[in-house]
């Protein structure tokens, strides 16, 4: 997993930050659409989604299977792949929580943005280990133009 890398167009990063600010102090969530090439990925588009955890939106998010299927369909229509998910951690670090790990899927990229006092701070990305025991950090490379992968 040492060669993994996530290219993110700067416009997409701005949209993720804006979504986190918009929903603060609640968690935002959405799908990452793009391409995967042997582990190196590019986020080309986003699909912001509603956080379905109405009971505890400050520290939880949920994407229903119907929304997952909609995201997969949208990716196919755009000739892209569903390569991962983003969510915010309001007033918490941009590190995966134990709850994140328990609910994570392998392969997907998980972008986390920390929103502190309503302002976007650190942004990180992670991939779950094959044995589900932890995460590998996935370096984010911001690009102004398509990386061409």
């Amino acid at each position: 997993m040492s060669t993994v890398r996530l290219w993110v167009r700067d416009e997409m990063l701005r949209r993720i930050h804006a979504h986190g600010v918009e929903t603060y102090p609640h968690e935002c969530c959405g799908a990452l659409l793009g391409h995967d090439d042997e582990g190196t990925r590019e986020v080309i588009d986003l699909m912001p989604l509603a956080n379905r955890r109405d009971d505890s939106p400050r520290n939880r998010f949920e994407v229903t299977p119907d929304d997952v299927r909609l995201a997969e369909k949208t990716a196919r229509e755009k000739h892209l792949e569903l390569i991962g998910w983003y969510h915010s951690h309001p007033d918490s670090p941009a590190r995966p929580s134990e709850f994140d790990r328990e609910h994570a899927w392998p392969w997907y990229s998980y972008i986390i943005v920390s929103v502190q006092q309503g302002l976007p701070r650190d942004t990180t990305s992670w991939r779950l280990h094959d044995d589900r025991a932890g995460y590998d950090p996935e370096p984010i490379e911001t690009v102004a133009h398509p990386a061409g992968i």
Partner: protein
Amino acid sequence: MAVKVIIPTPLRAYAGKQESVEVQAGTVAEALSALTTKFGDLKKHLFAEDGKLRSFVNVYVNDEDIRYLQKDQTSLKAGDTVSIVPSIAGGTDL
């Protein structure tokens, strides 16, 4: 009888990189058992340590969520499609 199991993208690496796998099964439980017998590495991603499906693993038979059918005892007939669909969850530790 032969049924098709659709493997979601994040689990394909554990199923020979296949998008779908054909198994012989009469119920959803049998289909998932046959699948994880064939591809052992899938088991920890589909089932919790108590042997139950993980809460964020959803199973559909021909577009119908098995929670609204007979859950894992839902009967299958030849040609049915069983789809494993993720739900996504997470959040901060408070």
